[in-house]
């Protein structure tokens, strides 16, 4: 499959969940192969994945999508260490703490994703969001620039919201 994709030396490879059904040792081989493409042939890769481990070890930039929109985007470190969207906190809280340390309780996201045939009026995540305000259900939040590379769509980032909760306060 990968051989077919790279046969004509493309500049861009879109890898849609390339290792989702694979065992970890085989997954590691495939990821090494993709890294090789990137380093040797300077191929750009768009990796589509729900595996935060794969993302942390492969990507330089990350877009988090929810309900058909990019709700947060940034450099991989900005996403993992300075996440600003409640959905991103939810994803990071859903997985066990990597590496050592006492096992903390997982913090799942309640509910399930919205029905896109009847999308909600405001923020798509509002119904599952612990921090949701009245405005969230009514209006789509604007894009907030957090740095030159880091953006998020959330009403909590609006300057009119008195105090923005930090990632620590969100339980991360």
């Amino acid at each position, binding site marked *: 499959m990968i051989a077919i994709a790279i046969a004509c030396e493309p500049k861009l490879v879109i890898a849609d969940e390339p290792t989702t059904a694979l065992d970890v*040792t085989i997954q590691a081989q495939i990821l*090494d192969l993709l890294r090789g493409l990137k380093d040797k042939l300077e191929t750009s890769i768009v990796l589509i994945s729900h595996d935060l481990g794969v993302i*942390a*070890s492969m990507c330089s930039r990350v877009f988090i999508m929810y309900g058909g929109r990019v709700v947060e985007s940034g450099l991989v470190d900005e996403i993992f260490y300075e996440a600003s969207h409640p959905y991103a906190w939810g994803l990071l809280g859903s*997985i*066990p703490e990597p*590496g050592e340390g006492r096992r903390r309780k997982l913090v799942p996201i309640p509910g*399930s994703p919205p029905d896109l045939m009847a999308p909600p009026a405001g923020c798509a995540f509002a119904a599952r969001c612990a921090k949701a305000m009245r405005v969230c259900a009514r209006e789509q939040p604007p894009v907030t620039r957090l740095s030159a590379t880091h953006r998020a769509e959330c009403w909590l980032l609006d300057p009119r919201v008195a105090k923005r909760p930090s990632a620590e306060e969100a339980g991360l």
Partner: protein
Amino acid sequence: MIEVKGLKKHFELRNGFFGGKTRTLKAVDGVSLSIGKGETFSLVGESGCGKTTAARTIARIYEPTEGAVIYGGADISRLGRKELLPYRKRMQMIFQDPYASLDPRMTVGEIVGEALDIHALRRGKDREDRIRELVSLVGLKSDHVGRYPHEFSGGQRQRVGIARALAVEPEFVICDEPISALDVSIQAQIINMLEELQEKFRLTYLFVSHDLSMVRHISRDVGVMYLGNLVEVAGVDELFSGMRHPYTKALLSAAPIADPRRAREASRIALSGDVPSPLDPPSGCPFRTRCAMAKGICAESKPELKAVAEGHLAACHFAG
């Protein structure tokens, strides 16, 4: 509470239409482990290593070829159908695929109620009350009782599967990849629920998974399987920090770390080649064909699973 001794499950495969030679597939080739009450033991390994077959053989879904499963003082691996029934009630299973493991023509109430009927536990209104109690125990609403599996999401279906397993008040629950088919955010819901149920009812879990970070989160003890054999067994912290078997080292190092800084620093032990066929396993140590440490002795004799430290077993000639 449950002790498995030298469990083997071999499948006979016939070659050709007229019988002819039979070949033996050694899916599980000598697994021994014990689990204490209220504890979680995880079996990990890659596809085809025999972890699911081992779990199903312990549950007597498959007939064991050899070995013993001691449960409540009796060897249940040799009991007949009728004698086994009371043990079936004490031992339940949660399956990987919540889409395939629920009958699409039965409502949630019927699925959960069937388990009660098989063991003739409740009747009439008492039965209906119990079904509603179970459904709310797993976080579903009571009006879900009359619905069919296709009306639910994957996570909700897995909740139905858990309600079915808990209906008969088991002590021991075998969870075979219970979260593999679910979304990340839903996985955490199910894992938290399994942990809460364990605490509430002092359940004992045998957890089969290939998700090493979740195994680390949920287990007390972990057994690593390779080609039908248990190659290492230890307490979860001991295993993740001081693994001795070269296969365990390779497996754990291959798991991606969900932390960019640590991921950049991590080094990986690459494994060459593929897992050999269980129809034609290598002589001696099953892992020797992919092991960087393999010497002559590894082809000659199969290493025993033996203690390398307190509560830590490994099957490697060089693990001492």
